[in-house]
């Protein structure tokens, strides 16, 4: 038995050797796919000539489940889409439901949501830095450096909400409970560690000649092509377009906050990495401002109905997720459950750029390009 199909082995020209391309299956269980993503690479020696992505290994029926459970129960499933930044997904879901039912959110709750969402964004980007460093081959050192800070952020989120990855902390109309008393002190402490952690990773990765050589000028994406493919988030911003929904369509309390949108120039892998690194500083900046501006008052709208029933209504809410535009479409036709919920997941759309980006590169680079897209399979497969 051979790994080559028989007809390929017989395929030898009379004039000499006739080479055939080889297909390599990467995933669904592979250290570089960050989950259960699978891609079928056709390689000519070490060069990739074609790539077919296969998804769906983590499909859990999020949208159907949201139709089968009432508005408050369904929120738990949305944590599990972008599971590296669960609070962001909760925020998007709650904003959609609030828009459906015209629920007012107290300002304090908005600040708390934004603050924790930005912490989650930092958390997710730390995960990217660690995993991307491992993809490039730094033997887990970047991973443990990133993990150190992630643990601190998770601890903080646990102190606030009672859970680390899937806090289920937001509610339509506010947040479940108020912040703990020593939150500001703890948060500033964690922020200090975050700055230190970003500097460490910056030194470990950006300060390394080999890392920069590997990423620079690799698979550049133009702005037009990125828009045509539906790419959003840091990958789009790395091409030079300052498209960030927090600025473009300000929601929640973002109009009151000062921050910049880091953009790249060439749209190559190195720019994607640098944009994320720069974004982490901006997110930390947002958290600091939130801590200063945090108003008093209720954390949950006191006039909420016991059982949320929404008559005919339709809403589409999009926020800037960690990976790009995180859109939630909700349709209500009476009753305490949504008639239809739809997730526009940024990872899924970004993934569509993969197959044309890896063609013509080495196998080793295909792994890096996949890593630079920073997909989360929970979000891709819903």
């Amino acid at each position, binding site marked *: 038995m051979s790994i080559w199909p028989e007809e390929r082995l017989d395929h030898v020209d009379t004039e000499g050797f006739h080479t055939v391309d080889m297909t390599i299956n990467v995933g669904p269980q592979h250290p570089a796919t960050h989950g259960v993503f699978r891609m079928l690479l056709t390689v000519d020696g070490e060069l990739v000539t074609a790539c077919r992505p296969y998804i769906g290994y983590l499909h859990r029926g999020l949208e159907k489940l949201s139709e089968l459970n009432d508005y408050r129960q369904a929120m738990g499933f949305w944590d599990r889409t972008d599971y590296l930044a669960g609070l962001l997904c909760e925020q998007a879901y709650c904003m959609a439901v609030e828009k459906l039912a015209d629920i007012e959110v107290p300002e304090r709750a908005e600040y708390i949501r934004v603050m924790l969402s930005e912490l989650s964004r930092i958390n997710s980007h730390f995960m990217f830095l660690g995993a991307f460093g491992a993809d490039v*081959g*730094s033997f887990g050192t970047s991973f443990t450096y990133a993990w150190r800070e992630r643990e601190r952020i998770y601890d903080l989120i646990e102190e606030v909400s009672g859970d680390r990855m899937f806090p289920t902390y937001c509610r339509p109309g506010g947040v479940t409970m108020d912040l703990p008393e020593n939150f500001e002190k703890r948060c500033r402490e964690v922020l200090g560690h975050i700055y230190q952690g970003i500097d460490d990773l910056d030194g470990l990765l950006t300060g390394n000649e080999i890392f920069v050589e*590997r990423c620079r000028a690799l698979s550049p994406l133009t702005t037009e092509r990125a828009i045509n493919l539906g790419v959003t988030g840091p990958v789009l911003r790395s091409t030079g377009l300052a498209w960030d929904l927090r600025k473009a369509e300000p929601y929640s309390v973002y109009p009151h906050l000062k921050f910049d949108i*880091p953009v790249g120039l060439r749209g190559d892998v190195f720019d994607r990495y640098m944009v994320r690194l720069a974004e982490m500083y901006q997110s930390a900046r947002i958290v600091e401002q939130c801590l200063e501006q945090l108003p008093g008052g209720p954390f949950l709208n006191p006039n909420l109905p016991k059982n949320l029933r929404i008559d005919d209504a339709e809403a589409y809410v999009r926020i800037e997720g960690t990976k790009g535009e995180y859109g939630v479409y909700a349709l209500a036709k009476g009753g305490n459950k949504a008639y239809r919920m739809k997730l526009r997941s940024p990872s899924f759309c970004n993934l569509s750029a993969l197959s044309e980006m890896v063609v013509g590169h*080495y196998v*080793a680079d295909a*792994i890096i390009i996949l890593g630079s897209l920073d997909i989360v399979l929970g979000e891709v497969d819903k």
Partner: protein
Amino acid sequence: MNGASPLPFGDVFFGWSWLDAIIRIVIVVLLMTVVVVYLTYGERKVVARIQQRLGPNRVGPWGLLQGFADAIKLLIKEDIRPRAADRWVFEFAPFLTFIPVLMVLAALPFARDWGVRNVTLGLLFVNAALGLNIVGIMMAGLGSGNKYALLGGVRAAAQMISYEIPLVISILCVAMVAGTLDLNAIAILQEDRPFLLLQPLAFVIFFTAMLSELHRAPFDIPVAESEIVGGYFVEYSGIRWSMFQLTEYASLWAFSIFGSVVFLGGWEFPMGSDWGWGWQLFLTFVKSLAWIIAVMWVRTTVPRLRIDQLMSFCWKVLLPMSLVQLLMNGFILVYDWPQELLTLTSGIGAAALVGFVLYRTARHPSVAHLVGSYKRAGAAAQ
């Protein structure tokens, strides 16, 4: 200088030459086993230290018995042979990678007159034996019936053949200075200064090429964990897989002893021969430990090169520089110029090589194009 005799080091045990050889081989193999077990433990501890972890600390005091526990586990695991594998090629490959390392160990002087056999052409023998390693690796890659293994095997072949050349030339430079190929004699010649001082460029080239021959980061392309999940030994399990691990660490050890004899003066350098075999053994082990820790340190902090960068670094940088070094040595030695010139020319070369890399590192991360404050300054300004 006792380089002229092909006899064993020192006195013959029990009078018979063959019995003597067997006893010495058994001692070296037992020593190697213990060293390898503690090298795996040591590597895990060193890596853990750099990565801010604890490392193994459960089996025995400070986890000291962890290596033995792993060895027992590997011995009793099932030895799986995939159906697509070529039976005999697959099963013999681990032994064919291991035997060359054993041959090398038989020719290394651990202290004055301590070793299995003193080979007059020791330098040549060691290089020839290490070159044989590739046969087993190619067999493993081709015989496994796995495409990852095939890629790993072919990558290993390309890499090892390329890096063999600068490796051998850098050692030839030392051989020119020493005027002998006998390892014992080379060590004795370094009584007042190690050859590192005379040939720093050769040392740098040797160290780099050694990392490549050992498949260590940043040249761990054949065994790239995040790309081809282990490369040529991906299909092996149990005892055969542990043979590959044994080979890896035994050759690391052999290379470090070889390198410390050739460049750092082995058992001879700071103390001279008069201090007795205990001190000499201690010196050899301390020097080889320094090599090994340097290798581990590089491994944890440096990402992996791409295959074309690897090749161009070898053929465009290492090979010309080693040839220039060889040429300069020839001039200086033929015209009997003072030895300080050797240090000077080689030192300039080494400084140029290291400076070139440092210059590129310093030139690189230009984050000026990233709009927004990149560093913490932005957060403070608000």
